[in-house]
């Protein structure tokens, strides 16, 4: 499942991309440090509620996608299998050994899965509501070197062009009798070989054109450049950035003083 930017005029859409990015970072830090399934669920439901409010179905679709569900189940299973602490709930006899399921394993599994799901969904919500170009320009204005910023812009610019070229090359192979669907792995490897070379040649020819076009317009002339669209931060944007920073600090402080008991049971987070 592919999540993409969905233009809109909601409050979320109108927020400054940097403010949204700071919220996403804070959200991820907080959900990873929180050790309460109730809180994790509340965070997840909050994301779904916001997604519903801005009128997108991409976030809920992502939640029930095969990718998200597989990841959710796999994380729980791994925690159940490898966590040995806690009270034994059930012991499943296997051919080689018994699989002991503990309450810690189950709790940590569910919580870890909720954490990953929350991070995936908050990221999806960010993507759905943020114009990627506006985000890159915001990052460049915030200090990311513009040469790196334009690498991302160029990727976005040429993604659809290359997708079309891949399709054309594959069609050209088939129209010359190459049957990748019948020849299994060998056919697939042949197809990859016959696809990569034409695409590299095409990409290099585009690079030549791009270099002439960009250098011919003084790209790289100075360390800084002008941006005609200036970043505007409303009081709400500023409040969000400040709140995000506070949330990260408070959660880290809470974790440091042992406010979240379940963390103590996780071997990889146990205080030294």
């Amino acid at each position, binding site marked *: 499942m592919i999540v993409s930017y969905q233009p809109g005029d909601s409050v979320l859409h109108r927020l400054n991309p940097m403010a949204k990015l700071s919220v996403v970072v804070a959200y991820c830090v907080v959900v990873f440090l929180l050790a309460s399934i109730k809180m994790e669920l509340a965070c997840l439901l909050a994301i779904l509620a916001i997604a519903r409010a801005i009128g997108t179905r991409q976030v809920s679709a992502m939640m029930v996608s095969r990718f998200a569900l597989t990841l959710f189940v796999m994380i729980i299973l791994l925690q159940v299998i490898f966590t040995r602490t806690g009270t034994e709930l059930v012991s499943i006899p296997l051919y080689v050994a018994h699989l002991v399921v503990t309450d810690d394993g189950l709790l940590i599994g569910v919580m870890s899965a909720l954490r990953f799901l929350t991070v995936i969904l908050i990221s999806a919500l960010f993507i759905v509501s943020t114009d990627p*170009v506006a985000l890159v320009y915001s990052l460049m204005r915030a200090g990311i070197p513009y040469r790196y910023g*334009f690498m991302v*812009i*160029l990727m*976005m*610019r040429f993604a*659809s*062009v290359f997708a079309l*070229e891949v399709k*054309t*090359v594959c*069609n*050209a*192979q*088939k*129209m*010359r*009798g*190459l*049957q990748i*669907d019948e020849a299994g792995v060998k056919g697939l490897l042949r197809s990859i070989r*016959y696809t990569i*070379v*034409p695409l590299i*040649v*095409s990409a290099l*020819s*585009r690079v*030549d*054109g*791009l*270099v*002439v*076009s*960009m*250098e*011919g*317009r*003084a*790209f*790289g*002339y*100075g360390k*800084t*450049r*002008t*941006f*005609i669209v*200036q970043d505007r931060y409303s009081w709400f944007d500023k409040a969000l950035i400040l709140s995000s920073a506070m949330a990260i600090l408070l959660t880290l402080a809470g974790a440091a003083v042992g406010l979240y008991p379940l963390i103590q049971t996780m071997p990889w987070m146990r205080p030294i």
Partner: protein
Amino acid sequence: MTIAIPSSQMALVVESDANPNANRGGDPSSAVAISVRDLSFAFPDRRTYALRNISLDIVEGEFVVITGASGCGKSTLALALAGYIPHVIEGTLSGEIVVGGIKTVEAALCDLAVTVSLCQQDPESQLCTLSVQDEVCFGPENLALPVAEVLRRKDDALAAMGLSDLLGRDVLQLSGGEKQRVTIASMLAMHPRVLILDEPTSNLDPDAAEEVLASIETLRRENKLTIIIIEHKLDRLLKTADRLIVMADGEISLDGRPAEIYPRYVASLGGSEAFPTPPGAEPAPEGDMTLQARDLWFKYGERDALRGVSLTVRGGEFVGIIGANGSGKTTFLNCLAGMSQPSSGEVELEGGNVRGLKLSAIARRMGFVFQNPNHQIFENTVGDEIAFACRNFGFGRDAIEKLVRGIMDDYGMAAYERSHPLRLSHGEKRRLNLCSILPHDPSIIILDEPFIGQDDANTARMISALLHLKASGHTVLIVSHDMDLVFRYCSRVLLFDEGKIVVDARPERARDQITALGKRNFLPGAL
């Protein structure tokens, strides 16, 4: 002011006037915009020089057209004039180029960027941002100009190219002609004194090419910009050009007023002798029906790309398909070849429905040459490339060798058998593309824009090959923006418009019908 002409070329230049500029359109009293002295250049991996002893002066405000065969050095000269040689493309360079008083070898490329701008033939590769506004502001922003100045330049450049209405548009939504005009506008925003355009219309349909050329003419009329255009198709440009320069083998072979130089250039090509004789009026084809499309509909999202297209073609027909970009031509060919499935309608190939057939099964009877030669070159030698399809179809080794040898001999590719296909010239690659679909002898040959970027000699060779295939009973379908060739050599002309075939007739009748529809850009000689 003097214009240096290499002694070997003196005889070809108009000799009668004491002042060489009097023979050209430029005002002799104007300042020199470009001065080239004894310029020679060789690419690092080549033994021969791409440019040899070029000397010329171009005065401010002059409108110069440069032409010549593929590989004669036109584009290399453009890259040198704009400073990309030697700053981006290295090689062996001698001589001197001065543009706007700046020696290109000594100046930094970004300093040259405000003096000379180069616009290339493929607009898709030159647009580096996602909106028209960002694209036109890109250069002035890089110069770190104040915001107000950037915005002023953007407005001026868009107005100069008649693009003010496109300001808020996404570049991905633009047509080919609009993209090329946005590219030129983005160059104009740099306020260059010299604008060089390398085949700016070669990838465009006639309507879009007309848009671009009209904008360039307006630019020339209303600004004192020095404009240099590199082009193969000269008819339209020569009406307004001050000067025509013809290049051959890296040298300037002719230089002067278009009215004087053009006839000599045509004579040097051997006039129309290079092209095969057009077949003339032919009886209605009586061959077997090879391909039939019935009421094809195709949708891209909400847009109908094809709206009830029907067509029957027979063996021995040479069908030319014309129409604006986005009118449905390529979608139609894709449906015929089974690469796209129509939402409704049927395609029959030699009497059998193609629906459900594998592409490889269709490919056994239908050869398809795509627009970009590099997208369909897969092997490391020309011989293997021509044998590629036969190997996939399971032909025996001896049969493949015999078929490939025959094709290479017939199409003049034998000398390149062990060469890497990617080292061939553009014209040779196109010939190789055609050769690579022929050994398994498909009855239908489809070519998408086979003449783009080809000079007259290569085009003539390709036309001869297609006429030969037609004469041997093959059905040939080509999509082309070259109206002159389509009307001259095709036995049938189809005009697509908004997903429908609006004209389907023999060339002479098609000419009348297209005139009646008011689509004059789709008539021969329009551009």
